[in-house]
């Protein structure tokens, strides 16, 4: 077994992708300038958020996200052993590297600062968290006010009469800066609570392992998991709408063949139809600001903009209601099971002091957990949906100005190029002479599209560089599911015994035929009783969990989406298998053991 992964400097540029580096921030690509540091570090591919090639503008949000995370570890809460997570783009894929504090004296010195800063947040959690949602709603409202109108033929008369003394060009540039600054702010808000939430959860996790060394991970997760989770609301809304459609006798019209726009239109005019449409409109805001992917790609389809997606799920639910099946999640059973688990472990603690500590840590973990589970809807789904929409508006404006042909081409620009493009537009508009863009960009966009196509042919290795002895950064373990064990497994390569192992993310054992799904577009192929095998799952896949028998993912830990949802639905799940989608073929019979974290190919 090798003791290190290939060097990032050994990675060849895929043919036809030459020059890809120039499309990303100069600070976020590997270079000789930092070679010694970069070559000695450990880099893992972030398959949880970005399993595919990332376009230059999309890289913005990832940089803001990962660097925001880092800032809170390093500069806000002073997490004693962990600095940030470094980020690089390689052949269009994102690699991350957890950075620790090496010097034990320095770790020691950070402890009092951490105690003061994190302690303040834990002690005032409810008050501070109460302010979070209004902050985020205000931010989304502000994002919604953004618009990118074309530069006017003449400045409005009001500019003259009010003596404004500025022009629309300045507004255009300012608005773009506002959009990216609000996006950065969004990610600052995102990590205000998350790092601490994970730290508190890990502490409870550690206490459980100390009291009960062999306690299964999912037992710990079950004791903490929330029941009313906003991330499930979009799905819940569809279930309610399905029931309502049957009650109002409009189900058949919704089930009729046709595109969403036509089907919805056909309901208009009848009493039941109008009533149902009103409920549908009501549910759309905010719950249809829901991405079919991780929310980190501009190309992820958002329900609001692709009504066929929620309509498809709705139809499945309507059919179930008509068959007399219950759509309710077994809430009472989940709550009763959670309470039983807590009670029984508590009874098994001999010592009064330990029992009190256990209760206190469980209490804190439950205090922080709603944020851990809920923020995702508000940030990655809702706010991101707005950011992508506004950028697309900007793209459309540039298409109208003749700069390129497709509004989505704007995402082939890096975030710092956009002001230059806008300046070019301004230049031509102000002078009354041709901008360079309309000649320059169509050619350049063709070249960039070619680079992206070439990058998509490349298969990124799961990791690069030198793995550390132990991985301590809390996000790396909890969210990405990267542990010293998974690193060892990657180094050893896939086993050839037909067995895969990963996180025992949701208990239970199931057997069934595999369905390998590589992207959201494939989920319509899933049949009742199949085992979903995917690189990862996204919240908007929720409706499929009603029909599958188990889930296997390549990436993700016990807090990954697949893990959380499968625990809610009572389905076995094994996450972070690394090679699931590579080794398993659709149709193979699998045995998924969510108790032990193993997947066996039976035939």
């Amino acid at each position, binding site marked *: 077994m090798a003791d290190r992964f290939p060097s990032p400097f050994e990675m060849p540029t895929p043919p036809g992708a030459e020059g890809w580096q120039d499309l990303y921030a100069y600070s976020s690509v590997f270079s000789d300038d930092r070679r010694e540091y970069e070559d000695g570090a450990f880099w893992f591919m972030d398959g949880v958020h970005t399993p595919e090639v990332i376009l230059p503008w999309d890289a913005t949000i990832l940089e803001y996200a990962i660097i925001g995370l880092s800032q809170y570890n390093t500069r806000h809460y002073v997490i*004693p*052993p*962990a600095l940030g997570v470094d980020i690089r783009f390689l052949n269009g894929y994102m690699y991350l590297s957890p950075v620790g504090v090496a010097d034990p004296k320095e770790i020691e010195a950070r*402890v009092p600062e*951490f*105690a003061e800063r*994190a*302690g303040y947040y*834990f002690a005032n959690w409810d008050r501070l968290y109460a302010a979070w949602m209004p902050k985020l709603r205000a931010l989304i409202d502000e994002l919604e006010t953004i618009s990118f109108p074309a530069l006017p033929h003449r400045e409005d008369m009001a500019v003259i009469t009010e003596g404004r003394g500025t022009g629309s060009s300045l507004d255009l540039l300012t608005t773009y800066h506002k959009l990216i600054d609000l996006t950065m702010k969004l990610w600052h808000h995102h990590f205000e609570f998350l790092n601490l939430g994970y*730290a*508190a959860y*890990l*502490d409870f*996790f*550690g*206490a459980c*392992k*100390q*009291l*009960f*060394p*062999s*306690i*299964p*991970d*999912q*037992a710990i997760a079950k004791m903490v998991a929330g029941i009313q989770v906003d991330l499930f609301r979009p799905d819940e809304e569809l279930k309610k709408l399905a029931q309502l459609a049957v009650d109002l006798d409009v189900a058949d019209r919704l089930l009729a063949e046709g595109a969403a726009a036509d089907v919805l239109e056909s309901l208009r005019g009848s009493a039941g139809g109008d009533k149902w449409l009103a409920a549908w409109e009501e549910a759309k805001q905010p719950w249809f600001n829901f991405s079919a992917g991780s929310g980190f790609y501009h190309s992820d389809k958002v329900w609001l903009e692709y009504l066929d997606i929620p309509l498809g799920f709705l139809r499945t639910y309507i059919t179930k209601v008509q068959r007399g099946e219950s759509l309710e999640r077994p809430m009472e059973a989940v709550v009763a099971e959670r309470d*039983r*688990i807590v009670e*029984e*472990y508590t009874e*098994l*603690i*001999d*010592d*009064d*002091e*330990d029992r009190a*500590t*256990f209760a*206190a*840590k469980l209490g*804190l973990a439950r205090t922080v957990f709603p944020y851990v589970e809920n923020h995702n809807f508000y940030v990655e789904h809702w706010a991101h949906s707005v950011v992508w929409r506004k950028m697309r508006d900007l793209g459309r404006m540039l298409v109208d100005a003749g700069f390129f042909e497709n509004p989505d081409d704007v995402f082939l620009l890096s975030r710092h190029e956009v002001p230059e493009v806008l300046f070019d537009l301004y230049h031509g508009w102000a002078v009354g002479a041709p901008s360079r863009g309309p000649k320059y960009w169509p050619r350049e966009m063709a070249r960039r599209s070619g680079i992206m196509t070439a990058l998509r042919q490349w298969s990124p290795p799961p990791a690069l560089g030198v793995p550390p002895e132990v*991985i*301590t950064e*809390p996000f790396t*373990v*909890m969210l990405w599911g990267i*542990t*010293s*064990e*998974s690193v060892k497994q990657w180094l050893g390569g896939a086993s050839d015994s037909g067995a895969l192992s990963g*996180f*025992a993310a949701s*208990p239970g054992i199931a057997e069934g035929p595999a369905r390998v799904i590589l992207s959201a577009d494939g989920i319509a192929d899933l049949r009742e009783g199949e085992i979903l095998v995917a690189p990862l799952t996204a919240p908007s896949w929720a409706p499929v969990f009603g029909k599958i028998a188990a889930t296997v993912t390549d990436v993700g*830990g016990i807090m990954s989406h697949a893990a959380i949802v499968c625990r809610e639905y009572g389905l076995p799940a094994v996450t972070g298998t690394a090679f699931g989608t590579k080794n398993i073929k659709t149709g193979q019979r699998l045995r998924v053991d969510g*108790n*032990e*974290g*193993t997947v066996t190919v039976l035939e």
Partner: protein
Amino acid sequence: MAQILWFENYQPADAAVLGGKNTSLGTMFSAGLPVPPGFAVSADCYRKALADAGLSGQIDALVAAVDMRDPVSVSAAGERARELITGLAMSADLDEAIRAAYARLGEKCGDERVPVAVRSSATCEDQPDASFAGEHDTYLWVRGGDAVTDAVRRCWASLFTDRGIAYRLERGYGQHGAAMSVGVQQMVRPRAAGVAFTLNPLDGDRSQIAIDASWGFGEAVVSGEVTPDNYLVDKVMGTITRRTISAKTTEYRLTDADAVVAAEVEEARQSVPCLTDEQIAAVARLARRAEKHYKCPQDVEWALDEALDDVVLLQSRPETVWSRRPKAGGSCNADPIASMVHTLLHPVKGTPESTC
């Protein structure tokens, strides 16, 4: 004087004449634990039989003369006492009572020559702080009234094994006060058998049930002659948290002549798990019930009965190693910040270890 006490009619007041092992069986039976049926010959019968035969004084004198520092004297006195007891004539009254009870057990089990285990149960045996385990005789696979009454006499005699005498002397138990009750219980014919602890013996983890299991009779596991399959089952979640399958080379089997003999396990079966997941769960449930009943960690012997195709409980005793350790209070840090720092500095493993 009650001669025969059925396990199913067990009353706590009977404990004094039942001895540790029979009391334990009676308690388990009355708690609804899956124990094979049977009855006990009370310790009073032993006392009366010795008195009737005029042996009480003679045996007391034999034991009183023993010099504990001299193993030869212990062994000579023991041998003589055992000879006397094995040779005594049981009263017709008791002989008939035992035969009648055996016949009734035969009816219950649908086999008039039902095979039984005849076990010694000394009156102070199996106290939490005094283990007589292995000190006295057990006869397995006994059939028919003659053999049963004979085995009862031999169990009585085994009160005076060398180890039994020495054990009582060392602990200062009065030799005169020691008496022997005898249990007669339907034999199970195990496909697999073993022991279970209601905690993890390696680290004292109370949330786990540790199961050792091997082919055939439990003797192979108890004596340590085989490396058994080993499982850890989480009590609360019911999940198998660890499983280690070993090559089980020896098993105790029953011959056609009702003898239990050690035999080599054929190679193809050695490394096959001897329990299914459902059976593992059944053993864990049984151990957990015993623990809940006794309200303290248990050390359980169980068997998977061939005929019943179900798990039965053979014995349950308090676990003594971890239970006697002083409780390590405050084993996790109550100060959340200090504890978080500790957790961050010493990250716990994210994945449970798997040794499959």
